[in-house]
């Protein structure tokens, strides 16, 4: 058991903090939001320049050759600043499975560009009424020539308009296929969505879209397990982001209540206020611990389905409770869009609902318990 961060991990954390604190200021985010798009291309370029976009990429693709732990440290800091950059869709949901399961040609073609910031990738992980990307129900792929023809639809696809390729799963004759879709290909249509977190998201419609052989990752034998692999990492990465989001909103609340005076004393000295904040501290500590465990196990390629589910359950519950406690203790100040707390609230909801809520994940864990696969040993 080792809960410490190595010197290299601290370096990654410090570097990420320095850049994000400097560039992802509330004023900058406000300006981007007023322009109508929550994406900071300049910041993304700076993260590329610092090497952070390649933190978990092998050196031969221009990366730093670190692992999932270091990547999650970056993501936690993005959560702590609510920086408008697509770290999870790009660096986790699409880059990690390509690096792990893609062909050499795919890796050579796509990964160096991600590290240098020249291109974005994303993943389409949900369909209407289906939040499990390992069991696509509305999207199918049929072999044609060397490639596949895709039909169907995906919902809530982040940054679909800017991505060079969109990683997605589709039913094939032999199982679940994993494909890299070109959003510019004929038959693809994107409809913008308007979402709580203001992340740019799209509905993706596929009408006889041709995917060439070079963009196929798997045709069905291992597709479901690849999607499960990336879903666990995506969920866990969002848990890491929630740690940053909740921790920061809790600390903003602690300092606000220490300054805000009513009845001639700081409101933090009222036990009812202190205790609500203390409950946030407990929640954040719980969420952080189960998240770090999931990260550590995945980084070492251990079987960690139970631990990832537990982290996701805590993330949804903690994110929700801390968000409302922070708003409540801020009084009216927290809802004012000139004060940054509101962004932490909308991102808590974003993370809570992605890839299954606490309730649906509890049901999954309960099913695994009933199957004798999750005893408390």
């Amino acid at each position, binding site marked *: 058991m080792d*809960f410490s961060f190595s010197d290299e991990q601290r370096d990654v954390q410090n570097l990420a903090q320095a850049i994000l604190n400097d560039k992802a200021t509330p004023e900058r985010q406000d300006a981007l939001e007023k322009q109508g798009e929550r994406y900071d291309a300049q910041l993304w370029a700076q993260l590329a320049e610092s090497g952070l976009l390649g933190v978990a990429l092998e050196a031969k693709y221009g990366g730093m050759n670190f692992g999932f732990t270091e990547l999650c440290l970056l993501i936690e800091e993005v959560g702590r600043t609510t920086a408008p950059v697509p770290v999870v869709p790009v660096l986790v949901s699409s880059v990690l499975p390509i690096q792990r399961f893609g062909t050499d040609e795919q890796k050579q073609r796509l990964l160096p560009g991600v590290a240098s910031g020249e291109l974005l990738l994303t993943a389409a992980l949900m369909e209407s009424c289906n939040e499990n990307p390992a069991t696509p129900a509305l999207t199918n792929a049929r072999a044609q020539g060397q490639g596949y023809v895709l039909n169907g639809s995906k919902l809530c696809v982040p940054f679909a308009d800017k991505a060079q390729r969109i990683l997605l799963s589709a039913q094939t004759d032999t199982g679940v296929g994993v494909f890299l879709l070109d959003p510019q290909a004929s038959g693809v249509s994107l409809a913008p969505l308007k979402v709580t977190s203001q992340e740019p998201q799209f509905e993706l419609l596929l009408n006889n879209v041709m995917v060439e052989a070079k963009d196929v990752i798997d045709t069905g034998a291992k597709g479901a397990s690849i999607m499960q692999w990336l879903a666990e990492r995506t969920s866990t990465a969002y848990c890491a982001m929630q740690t940053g989001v909740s921790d920061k909103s809790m600390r903003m609340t602690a300092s606000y209540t220490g300054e805000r005076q009513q009845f001639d004393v700081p409101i933090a000295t009222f*036990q009812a206020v202190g205790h609500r904040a203390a409950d946030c501290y407990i929640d954040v500590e*719980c969420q952080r611990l*189960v998240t770090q465990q999931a990260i550590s*196990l995945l980084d070492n390629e251990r079987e960690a389905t139970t631990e990832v589910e537990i982290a996701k359950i805590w993330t949804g519950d903690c994110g929700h409770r801390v968000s409302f406690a922070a708003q409540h203790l801020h009084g009216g100040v927290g809802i004012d869009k000139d004060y940054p707390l509101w962004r932490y609230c909308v991102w808590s909801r974003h993370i809570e609902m992605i890839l299954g809520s606490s309730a649906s994940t509890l049901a999954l*864990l*309960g099913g695994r318990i*009933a199957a004798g696969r999750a005893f408390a040993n």
Partner: protein
Amino acid sequence: MKIEFTPEQAALRTELRAYFEQLMTPELQDEVDATPGEGGGPLFWQAMKKLGQDGWIGVGWPKELGGRGMSDIEQMIFVDEVMRAGFPFPFLTTEAVGPVLAQHASERMKSELVPKILSGKLIIAIGYSEPAAGTDLASLTTTATLEGDEWVIKGQKIFTSLAQHADYIWLAARTNPDPDIKKHKGISIFLVPTNAEGYDCTPIHTLGDVTTNATYYDSVRVPADHLVGELDKGWRLVTGQLNRERMSLVNCGPVSQLLNNTIQWAMDNKLPNGDRVIDQPWVQINLAKVRSGIEVLKLMTYKSAWKASNPVEGEDPMTAAASEMADASAAKTYGTEFFVEAYRLLAEILGQASTLHLDSKGSELRGRLEMLYRTASIITFGGGANEIQRDIIAAAGLWMPRAQR
């Protein structure tokens, strides 16, 4: 960061689990169940003696004091496994008071008591709380006055658990009555033999069938060298062990075992329609809630143990102490409130069978959930009321200003 057991730690766990499974014979289990949480029967003392012989008492003590010198993580594994097995191990004597005594007691008391503790022949009860000094412990009024070469102790303690089996009371008494000094500054610790003249102990029968005691000190005289540590400096000995004590209160061993037993029960029992109890969605949800709550508890306790032997390099000692305090208080608050919730979630699965007493026909899981409903009332205020814990968290964890008291 590597949050999993090392192969050596995993091997220790396996060894201990097998050891305690063997130690807990059905006869010992019956004896333990008859006196929940207490021990003290003949088979208990036999098991204690064996633990002493096998070197499993004082696992965390330094080797030069006769202990095993285990690391904090290994100690936590030990505590987990003992508690999972359900053996009423006298942790307060062996792991909380013991090492402090071995360090701070007089030479004569050390040479008399330490070998007995390490061989499993002696239990020490803690005498802190008084009828009018609970949460505000430093306002205690039991006094000790030096007369010649003896201390004369006068006062009353309450909730002196295990006093009925104990050879000594680890007693906090006021030794400096000066009203102008801060009240926690005039307190000292004494070892009071339970066979001393003027000492009396009467049982308090509790909701949970656990017997605790009121103890009385009617001019009890003890030799001068029964004072532990420095005069008037006992408060440090009282609080020095609090973080560790809070952590040991919320060990995840017993609730893990209880969850596993409930899962097995729900797999083995059928509903009228032929489905297993565990096939019902609500049962699965209850089990999953408990399962995910346990995971946090495990990580909290192991992280605190890990932290104890891995101080952050260059961290300001004040900051480190504050964060340790906040984490111990967070674990105590979370853990105790989780236990109350978990026992309910599991009892719901058994339904009315969870109200059948251990001794009753039809009881399930050795009546454990029936008993826990009654014993769990104490955990949210015992070991420091959770309100105080939340005060500590707000101040030490979040640096929020405190109200004047």
